[in-house]
């Protein structure tokens, strides 16, 4: 797609680089904002990961050893929220900020001040979330949010005032993500270098275009739902209260109208990253560029219409569940096509196995597994058994850790030399990779068996018959957790120094971003590069 030649690339800028704290707080530079996003998401990753470690430590043995039940439930809730909104989405947004302008030859994001605002809204949301976690420990603070990230009423109506802080956290996150999405869409549609059509765009930009559109559509219903929840809690309305003619299921519909596409919001950017890594290390172009774009669009659109497969057991009619079952299973078509295209890109390439490529291969294999258990879950008779059991926990971690998180790790290793100008330590990168793969599979594979044997999810205490698998799972999770110390070390080490990286960091990499120095200057492409597509591609 991108045999682009650059006729005219002019570096340097009209203003100098700002210094001191103002550079970061008041930033209007996509690279600085991207860096801030990435740093915040790394902090959140450790916070959410620490919670996961506590959860697994508690579940290591039957009985209640470490945590109060409500604190445990709160950790379950916040682990999900922090990982989804604090770690994965900001990391993806950070990479979008860094890479999209470089990839499409734009001088910056289309609306730089708004870009800064969406970042700081994220920080404000994180602060609000921390407040909601701390409040229950203060005198008169009430119960912690013990509802799980789904925040289902009536349970969420019972919760203490920390729920109100969480509701406003959702509002702040909503504002942040919507503004960021607007910015990304406008940048992609309006700021491409002359000569770059939509179908010449790098696949990462396409994945974010679909993602951003999804976010704009799904976040308002979520914000609306929690607003109604706030009214039910404090102003006596009856949206989710049968006594007043409302229905708790309404919240579930609104939540999952957001919650299901959100899964694709997490997945797509990482899939976009793979669309760069695999061609680079296979040294041949992406197989089926058009169908990959089509698949992403299809995932986005179909994904908007299948939300209620999370509610098979709540009392939907036969017609409704049949529709949602078929719709959900149909999603496997574009997702399958996506995975197929990536495998076909590797096929007959000349592969080398640097850390990003190792991650890409691991992702394809493990994500396929998570996708296939997804088809099992979509088939309703089976789902009646799997629903709300550990099988579901295993499934979505198999979908989201490879599909979203590991894709971002791959992106970090792929682009870190470009961002910092230094090569990372390949040996440490590989150690990290293998620790992640072993830890991850050890953690979540046994959970399938737990679910099938009848262990419900979100319980703090369990019967001794579930002990063995839980122990294995906990040990795996500790390995998985420890791996991240290596990750942190690699990143810090790379930022501080290392072998110099050239413009073209990877032998097989294609695209505008690799024509720039590593690290790129503060302002890039202030005069847009002229793109001429190689004749054979047209």
């Amino acid at each position, binding site marked *: 797609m991108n045999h682009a030649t650059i006729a005219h690339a002019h570096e340097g800028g009209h203003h100098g680089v700002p210094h001191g704290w103002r550079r970061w707080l008041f930033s209007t530079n996509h690279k600085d904002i991207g860096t801030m996003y990435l740093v915040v998401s790394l902090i959140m990753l450790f916070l959410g990961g620490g919670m996961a470690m506590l959860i697994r430590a508690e579940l290591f*043995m039957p009985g209640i050893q470490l945590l109060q039940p409500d604190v445990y439930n709160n950790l379950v809730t916040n682990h999900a929220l922090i990982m989804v909104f604090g770690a994965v989405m900001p990391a993806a947004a950070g990479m979008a900020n860094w890479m999209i302008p470089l990839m499409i030859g734009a001088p910056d994001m289309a609306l730089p001040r708004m870009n800064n605002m969406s970042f700081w809204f994220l920080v404000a949301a994180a602060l609000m979330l921390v407040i909601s976690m701390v409040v229950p420990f203060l005198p008169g603070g009430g119960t912690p949010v013990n509802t799980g990230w789904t925040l289902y009423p009536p349970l969420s109506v019972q919760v203490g005032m920390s729920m109100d802080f969480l509701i406003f956290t959702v509002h702040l996150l909503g504002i942040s993500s919507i503004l960021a999405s607007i910015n990304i869409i406008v940048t992609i549609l309006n700021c491409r270098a002359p000569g770059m059509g939509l179908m010449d765009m790098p696949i990462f930009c396409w994945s974010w275009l679909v993602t951003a559109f999804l976010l704009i559509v799904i976040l308002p219903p979520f914000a609306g739902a929690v607003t109604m929840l706030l009214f039910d809690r404090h102003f006596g309305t009856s949206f989710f209260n049968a006594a007043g003619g409302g229905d708790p*299921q309404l919240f579930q519909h609104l939540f999952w109208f957001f919650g299901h596409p959100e899964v694709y919001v997490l997945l797509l950017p990482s899939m976009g990253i793979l669309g760069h890594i695999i061609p680079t290390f296979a040294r041949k172009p992406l197989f089926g560029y058009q169908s990959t774009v089509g698949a992403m669009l299809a995932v986005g659109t179909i994904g908007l219409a299948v939300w209620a497969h999370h509610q098979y057991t709540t*009392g939907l009619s036969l017609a409704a569940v049949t529709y949602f079952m078929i719709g959900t299973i149909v999603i496997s*078509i574009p997702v*399958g096509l996506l*995975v197929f295209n990536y495998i076909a890109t590797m096929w*007959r390439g000349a592969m080398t196995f640097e850390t990003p490529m190792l991650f890409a291969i691991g992702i394809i294999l493990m994500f396929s597994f998570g996708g296939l258990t997804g088809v099992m879950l979509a088939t309703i008779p089976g789902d009646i058994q799997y629903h709300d059991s550990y099988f579901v926990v295993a499934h979505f971690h198999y979908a989201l850790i490879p599909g979203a998180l590991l894709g971002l790790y791959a992106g970090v290793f792929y682009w870190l030399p470009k961002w910092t100008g230094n090569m990372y330590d390949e040996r440490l990168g590989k150690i990290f990779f293998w620790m992640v793969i072993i830890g991850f599979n050890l953690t979540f594979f046994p959970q399938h068996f737990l679910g099938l044997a009848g262990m419900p999810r979100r319980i703090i205490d369990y019967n001794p018959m579930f002990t063995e698998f839980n122990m294995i799972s906990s040990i795996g999770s500790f390995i998985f957790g420890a791996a991240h110390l290596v990750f942190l070390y690699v990143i810090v080490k790379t930022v501080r120094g290392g072998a110099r990286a050239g413009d073209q960091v990877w032998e097989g990499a294609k695209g505008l971003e690799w024509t720039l120095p590593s690290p790129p200057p503060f302002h890039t492409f202030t005069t847009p590069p002229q793109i001429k597509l190689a004749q054979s591609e047209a």
Partner: protein
Amino acid sequence: MHGGSQFKRLMQFLAVALFLGVAGHVHAEYGINFPEPATPSARDIYQIHMRTMTIATVLLIIVFAIVSYSLYAHRKSRGFTPDQNFHRGWFGRWSWVLVPLLVLGVDMTIAGSAEEVLKRLWLVPKDKDMMEVKITGHQWWWEYEYLDQGVRVESRYVPQEKAGSLYLRDVDNPLVLPINTKIRFLNTSADVNHSFWVPQLGFKKDAIAGYITETWAVIDKEGTYRGQCAQLCGTWHARMPIVVQAVTPEKFTAWVGAQKTRMAAAEAEAASGKVWSKEDLLEKGRDLYNKNCSACHQLDGKGLPPAFPPLMAGGGFPAGENMTKPLQERGFFKDGKIVVGPVPKHLDIVLNGIAGTPMQPWNQLNDLEIAAIVTYERNAFNNNTGDVIQPADVAKARGATAPAKSD
């Protein structure tokens, strides 16, 4: 639990698991697949589960095989030169049609096989002679009402000391059901959402506050089937086990008879007009309070603010106005603290609950039980009012305030 022995078991288990291989057959002791089904629907589900799992495994093996071959063969270190025109060949041009068609075929196979079973599971037969059981989820116990037999059972978890290895899998009163009988289950909840799940029976339905969700089953094997609440329902979600005891219809009839005798005796005792001593009421009241009320208001009466107020006079209750105002109106809340209000209001709260708060009506308890609970609450936790409430007082209060019972 002793860490050492647990670890030993784990090591033994790891050895066994390695030996068997992970994707092996159902292994009773370690449970890596569904437990043995006990109803036709659970068997149908089991079959569909095995079929989709087989398809998934085959697909996964194919993907692994292709990727593995590629990883081996198409490496730069083996000197393989990339095929730059691979994506332009006929395969590259048509794969976007071929792959989706292939996946669609697999999808339709899976969905098609599920369709018929789905219909059977979803459409509850409308037979007139079906047995009906109403299941109500409470925080954190189950209530079973046999609508045709007029029997009511409360089912609570058994603490670890008594339950032993069945901890969190055992209850005080199981749900007794006859085999070979079509049973309709009417699920609902008194407070937050719960979900009734016994894997071997092959159904799971959320119990939604204020709504009835229906399911049905025919159990065809005698036995004891265990499950748990599957929908996060707050603090003690983990402590809502379910035990279903499937017995022959004859045994079931006998069991119903015994339950009726028990209930009638309790009813007669409550209605006998007997005047109870304070000590007796307090003793009964403590048991009943611990069983019915302590989940929310706690054993020591300190409550769990802001959802559940303390019952202890002088206890602080930091909560929103929606919680404190109804209490204030009834005389139980003053200057930010809980006070012991008037007896009639106390009875009113227990009998009718407080709309808009988690406090539910407890009018399913009989007069004696309520009298005992209220007496206990007014004297325990250093409340020491000295009040004694007799069943007759409760009967009067019930007549005065209770709305016409709808069922």
